[in-house]
């Protein structure tokens, strides 16, 4: 997999949020790269910072957030220092985002096809006939009959609207798509349809993707590589095979043990006692220490960096055991 060039390289991304008057660190020294044609997963439980990472990389943090350090190199330029005008050209055209609530962000009083066509004309520089042609192509791509492009959003179900949003996201042939919780709140069957669509787009168009989701099973299914986040940091990164079958970080190990399977023996699933630190608390050492069975003093004094477990497989743990067998 190392042969593929990277299209996005993030180094030491650090961001913070303001609560009241004080700024609290939210993301700590995140470094990762997205390779051409891969689906990269950002996974973790709520509050771990995965959605924040995406908005930070796109330099789209809300008003009370700010980037403190780091770079996000895309096509030779640092997204975090680009002026807004340049960023606008990249948003949608080169990097597109699909959000969880996006299926509700279609204009209810305009036909769906014309909303996509508008993007193509305004940002893609197409004329009307070209845009219409492309809309038909896109609808076929997402598996909806092209003549339905003349319908209004309320005539589509939730799953179909999400697919339309995906079409809108890829209509300008971006190099990278960021899908943030785009399957949550959908039925499992519709989820599967969306997953199929994303996989197909990745395989046929070579679309690179960042897939953000709290459902680790979904991430394991669809992604090539994954980074698991905890308290604003990466705790493990590698191929999904490595991370989920041979987890090296205690948190990830326990998390995987909490996930139900459809096959195999039915022992009681094990939960992880305690809860993650809040935004206002930034422990000096490893953030997982209070809940970790293996921890010791070394873990309390220094935040473990991402250490190699195996080629391409990293875990932020001083105690990581390299390439041990999965514990199912």
């Amino acid at each position: 997999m190392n042969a593929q060039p990277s299209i996005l390289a993030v180094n030491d991304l650090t961001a913070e949020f303001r609560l009241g008057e004080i700024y609290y660190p939210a993301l700590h020294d995140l470094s990762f790269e997205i390779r051409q044609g891969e689906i990269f997963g950002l996974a973790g439980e709520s509050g771990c910072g995965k959605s924040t990472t995406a908005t930070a990389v796109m330099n789209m943090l809300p008003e009370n957030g700010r980037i403190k350090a780091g770079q996000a190199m895309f096509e030779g330029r640092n997204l975090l220092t680009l002026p807004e005008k340049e960023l606008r050209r990249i948003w949608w055209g080169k990097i597109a985002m699909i959000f969880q609530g996006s299926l509700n962000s279609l204009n209810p009083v305009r036909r769906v096809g014309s909303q996509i066509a508008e993007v193509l004309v305004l940002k893609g520089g197409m004329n009307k006939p070209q845009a219409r042609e492309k809309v038909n192509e896109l609808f076929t791509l997402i598996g909806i009959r092209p003549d339905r492009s003349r319908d209004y959003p309320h005539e589509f179900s939730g799953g179909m609207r999400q697919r339309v949003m995906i079409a809108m996201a890829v209509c300008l042939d971006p190099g990278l798509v960021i899908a943030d919780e785009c399957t949550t709140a959908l039925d499992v069957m519709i989820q599967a349809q969306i997953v199929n669509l994303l996989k197909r787009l990745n395989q046929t168009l070579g679309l690179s993707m960042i897939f953000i989701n709290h459902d680790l099973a979904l991430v394991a299914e669809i992604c090539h590589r994954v980074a698991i986040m905890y308290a604003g940091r990466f705790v493990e990164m590698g191929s999904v095979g490595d991370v989920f079958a041979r987890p090296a970080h205690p948190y990830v190990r326990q998390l995987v043990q909490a996930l139900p399977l459809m096959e195999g023996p039915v022992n009681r699933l094990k939960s992880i006692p305690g809860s993650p630190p809040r935004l206002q608390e930034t422990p000096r050492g490893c953030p997982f220490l209070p809940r970790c069975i293996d921890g010791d003093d070394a873990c309390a004094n220094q935040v473990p960096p991402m250490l190699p477990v195996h080629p391409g497989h990293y875990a932020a743990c001083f105690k990581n055991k390299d390439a041990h067998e999965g514990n199912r």
Partner: protein
Amino acid sequence: MKASLVDVRNMSVWFQARTGIVRRGKNNAVRAVDGIDFEMFSGETLALVGESGSGKTTVGRAVMGLLREAVGEIWFKDLNVLAADRENRLRLRTKMQMIFQDPFDAMNPRETIFKIVSEPLAIHCRNLSPASQRERVCRALADVGMTPPEDFLGRFPHELSGGQRQRVLIAGALVLEPDLVIADEPVSMLDASLKVEILNLLVKLQKKRNFTQLMITHDLALTRYVADRIAIMYLGKLLEIGPTRDVLARPYHPYTQSLIKVVPTVDKAWEEKAVLSGEIPHPSNVPSGCRFHPRCPRVIEICRNRIPEPMIVDQRMVQCHLVKNADNKRKGFTNE
């Protein structure tokens, strides 16, 4: 043969769309639940699984006796919930309790935890002294793992975490010591590790206090760990019921088969699955014959015209024309 605690017979819930001052007839009805039969045995956990529009939530509310639109029979021990008079309905409330999906919204943000957990006592046991009330609330909180309970009595919902809120709600449901607990998607709003925590808690409590549980969920993988039997619903109909591990290992109904294939688990890699095309029709516009026929990968001619009869095939109830070797009974399989 275990005792049957709940016996639902030919129950339907049709919501009339209110159009103007004069109500229209059956044509506009939303058939949320359409003629279902099932039983629940004492001490078991029955998982009611389905996607949106399946009617599973409506079934839960109907069994609780909360829906005026419910018709048919719902027998709870020796009482028909749907035909009970006011006094009996009130008595039933102490025997059946519900746990809701969104623990934050299920609590009045202005009330303390003590008030929230003691609300059932305030309604049904008005003669209890404040000290007894406090004692019962503390005992319930301790049972759900909120220790020391006294610390939590004066707190407010917004001060608790998601997992803690759900625990409080469970405590509130158990304070009257019900025989039946209906859990409506109790963990779908929680993170993966919290889901496990709460589900393990429910299992533990069920063993300790010996209540029966109807767990309404859309998460098929979890049912394997918590449910004795599983019932699959689709568009208001019960398609398949049976022992959980059996149904999940050897599903008979094509819908069940598709659902299982599509559930993501962390040990499986993606294959372009046999994903069902199309979407679930709206409950006001149900297909003729077998509800599932427009999307069924194994549809045959009869499916379009005739609603399949429930059939019993080794401890399993299935409603599908494809299932042969049927003992053509209405229902009534035993659970050994």
